[in-house]
């Protein structure tokens, strides 16, 4: 439990150095990534198309037909054409999204596969002293949970973020293009959306942290008390256990209350903002429609666009959190990968082609402490020299802590040399 905070520490969302290094992992798949990114240019217009279709239908066919200036037949023809275009948009949007999601998810998985292999391989070469410093559980997390956090970034994060950004930018530009005045009204809601989303995210993040802590507390208790149930019963501890568990159970409930509050406030806030924007557009634009300075189609299209700001912004804020945890995870991973591998077969190392098995220690000194001038107590092995002939069995006897195991580890190359001369003799 004590580690959760450290593990959860959120760093910066953006660190150019780390990001550049992360992108290296996508190199082998760069063509596929490029294709997925190119599809952004296709998906965005397609997602913006439906209101535009309705705008055309209203201005070109419905209103003229209702006013009698366009024959019903001709108008119906136009609507049919627009419907076919709409269908086309749906189909292309489906295909483009399918391909995009599929490519990115696959690339994400492949990247994770490579990365996991690399970390695991690196762990196989790290010096034993590294394992003395780092608990196994934490290292397992590097290979599993941390890599998965990156998956969210590779698979969904990067491309959807670009998608969303692009969508927002193009939508804003498009609204300005069709009607500058109304665009200002429609976009007036953006700061509010950003503020609400920001506060919500922050709230939810804090709540989630409390929830995780509370759940961990419940699980740890259950695990411990189920395993030790007979002790609990033998020592008449049931009442106290119930009280303690009740406390943890309540903590969990209270932690959830915060999250429920956040969501209960957020969803209505989003709806109120978007409907208020629509009302604003109707009010401001409607007057102009009545004064015949704005077409009804454009007005309707604006109300349809007004509801489309939220998803990308919500998405982006969610992705921002993903980015944050991915950065933290990659920082931990890179720290592990940058850990120097000290025992390596040096280039001049002899190949042992079926060593006969003669081992000789010549004046071996060894200390576990990695300091320039080990003090007298630091030395575990002092000037050890002996020779074992092939086929011989030797026994090493001594007190606990005398250095027996260190001696053996030496033979296996687990330790780095200090003042060592240690020979395998072929």
């Amino acid at each position, binding site marked *: 439990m004590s580690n959760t905070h450290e593990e959860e520490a959120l760093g910066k969302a953006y660190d150019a150095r780390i990001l550049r290094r992360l992108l290296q992992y996508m190199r082998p798949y760069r063509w596929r990534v490029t294709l997925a990114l190119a599809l952004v240019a296709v998906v965005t217009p397609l997602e913006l198309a439906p209101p535009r279709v309705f705008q055309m239908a209203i201005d070109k066919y419905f209103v003229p037909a209702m006013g009698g200036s366009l024959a019903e037949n001709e108008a*119906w023809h136009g609507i049919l054409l627009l419907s076919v275009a709409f269908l086309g948009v749906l189909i292309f949007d489906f*295909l483009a999204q399918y391909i995009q999601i599929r490519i990115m998810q696959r690339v994400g*998985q492949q990247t994770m596969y490579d990365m996991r*292999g690399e970390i695991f391989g690196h762990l196989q070469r790290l010096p034993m002293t590294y394992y003395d410093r780092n608990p196994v559980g934490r290292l397992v997390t590097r*290979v599993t949970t941390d890599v998965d956090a990156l998956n969210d970034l590779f698979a969904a994060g990067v491309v959807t973020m670009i998608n969303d950004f692009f969508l927002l930018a193009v939508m804003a530009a498009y609204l300005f293009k069709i009607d500058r005045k109304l665009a200002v009204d429609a976009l007036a809601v953006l700061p509010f959306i950003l503020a609400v989303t920001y506060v919500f995210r922050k709230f939810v993040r804090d709540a989630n942290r409390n929830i995780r802590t509370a759940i961990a507390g419940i699980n740890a208790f*259950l695990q411990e008390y189920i*395993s030790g149930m*007979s002790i609990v019963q033998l020592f008449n501890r049931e009442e106290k256990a119930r009280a303690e568990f009740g406390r943890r159970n309540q903590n969990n409930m209270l932690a959830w209350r915060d999250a429920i509050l956040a969501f209960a406030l957020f969803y209505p806030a989003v709806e109120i903002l978007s409907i208020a924007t629509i009302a604003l557009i109707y009010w401001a634009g409607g007057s102009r429609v009545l004064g015949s300075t704005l077409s009804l189609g454009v007005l309707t299209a604006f109300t349809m666009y007004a509801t489309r700001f939220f998803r990308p912004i919500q998405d982006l804020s969610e992705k921002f959190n993903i980015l944050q945890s991915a950065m933290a995870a990659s920082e931990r991973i890179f720290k592990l990968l940058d850990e120097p591998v000290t025992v390596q077969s040096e280039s001049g190392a002899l190949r042992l082609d079926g060593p006969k098995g003669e081992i000789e220690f010549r004046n071996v000194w060894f200390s576990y402490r990695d300091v320039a001038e080990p003090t007298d107590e630091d030395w575990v092995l002092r000037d050890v020299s002996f020779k074992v002939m092939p086929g011989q069995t030797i026994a090493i006897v001594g007190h606990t802590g005398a250095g027996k195991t260190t001696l053996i580890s030496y033979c296996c190359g687990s330790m780095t040399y200090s003042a060592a001369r240690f020979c395998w003799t072929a």
Partner: protein
Amino acid sequence: MSTKATNTKVDPSGRTQATKPATAGNNLLGLTPYLGRYKGAIALGLIALALMGIFGNVIPLATGIITDTLTGNPEPFQTSEHGQVVIGATWLSRNIPYYAPHSHQTLVIYCLILVACVMLKGLLSFSTRWILIGVSRDIEYDIRGDLLSRLLLLEPEFYVRNRTGELMSRATNDLNNVRMVLGPGIMYSATTLVTMVLAISVMLKLSASLTLWVLLPVPIVFFAVRHFGKIIHEMYEQIQASLAALSAKVQENLSGVRVVRAYAQEEAELRAFDEPNREYVSQNVKLIRTWSLFMPSLQALIGTSFLIVLWQGGHQLLRGQISLGALISFYTYLGILVWPMIALGWVTNIFQRGAASVGRLNYILEAKPRIDDRNAIIPPQTTIEGEIEFRTLTFTYPTNRSGLDSNNGTRSNGNEPQSILRDINLRIPAGSTLAIVGPTGSGKSTLAALIARLWDAPEGEVLIDGRPIREWPLDTLRRSIGYVPQETYLFGETVGRNIAFGLPKYDLSQVRAAAEVASLDSDAEAFANKYDTVVGERGITLSGGQKQRAAIARAVIRDPRILILDDSLSSVDTQTEERILTGLRGVMRGRTTVMISHRTSTVQDADQIVVLREGRIIERGTHDELLRRAGYYADLYQKQLLEEELERA
């Protein structure tokens, strides 16, 4: 044992199938008592939800009316082509005040109505969520508390039959599934129902035929969400399983890193790692295949509804059957129907999963404790003197799984369960000391466990103070016992709290005294925070000997009438053993003590020594008597004497 438990089948993995999925609906009914406690709040939440639906329903209407006012339609939603009203919702125009075509005032009024409605809706939707989801968390709290209370009542045998991991999964995953039913399940199905009924009834008024057209994709969306949802859920579970396999592989490799290096197995390990790594990726890719299809097709299906508004709505508009306002209302109605459409399929999955989980929770909640106070007739405040008697005791473990007792002695070699204890006749006078020796698996620990009723001996075969053990209230009986189990189990608390585990109230001076008896005092004083040092999960930071001594202190501090020491000095060296025994001797005076040991040096001062072998008493007497008999005990004594001499040499 409960009828439920007898009906369940335990497969080799220890997973228990509680009930058949066919009874899913009935299972969910089991939740009604929990819901009943909150019926006021739930009713309030549902009322808020219904009102929310009504206000929400006005919003699309208002957009339509605004559109119609802008087109100069004299009456909203009515079309008067060539002067005749073809179809229309006359009831609406009668009920909508201040409507005038081409009127700025009307526009403003309806814009304000729009804002007012969404505000009210927002307020109600806040209340709905706060109340209904809140109740689901309250019920989760209740159920979780009940789960623990039940678990506290169940006897060790239950925990032999059901592994910790399996019970944990019920208390976490299954509870969560049930919570999903109670919270989002109920809320979203009610929202879907209310929204759909209201929206569809208004839409039908506007145009019945267009409504049917527009709702065409709904069943497809329903089945798509249901189908994909199920597949995705299953795949997700498989992914979790392969992630677990991957973690296990890494864990195994890293824990044994020294061995891997020593045998130069790095390359082989890399290859071995590749398999779970690849497997995990391929499971994920399977999910991707479904997922990448699911999301876009859902979007396309919903888009189709909007396409129908344009196509069929346009057709009806051009033929003068609906107004442009009605068409825009349809568009907006679809907007508020998108979520209910998806929720329909999603919620059925939640209910299905929840029903299965209720069954699995009931397995615990309805489990009947086998060892309880049903025969207790002695008043609870009666004090136990400490006389223990076994009368022709024959005991067989009720479960046929092997290796369940800590002494590993119950391996049955056929279908016939073997008796672990046979025909034991033994009386331990109050205040005396009994020592039990014998080979591994002879039934020593079982005999001790029967005294504390961890297992129930056949009726009338174990007596305390002359009364059948089942007549004593369990609480009274166990309060009189200080038990040091063979396998030490400590909790992840402080040393002091572990020692005071069986005390009603923490008391440092008592803890100190108990630690002194168990010779743990000097160790504890040397810890970083003395008695406030946290011992870690299961006491991992303590040595084996320290753990055992903490367990002795934990038993002694209760000032018990009966002290049971089950091979509790095995992890300490002979010198410490001597010290502890000296300390214990003072405590044992006047108490009934049952002491199990492999060492004759530990037991030689006992008032009575019995030798157990294959569940029978083969020798009994004092140390001197047994030496004279020259049997198993005398043999053991000679061997250990020899060992001691060798050690000294």
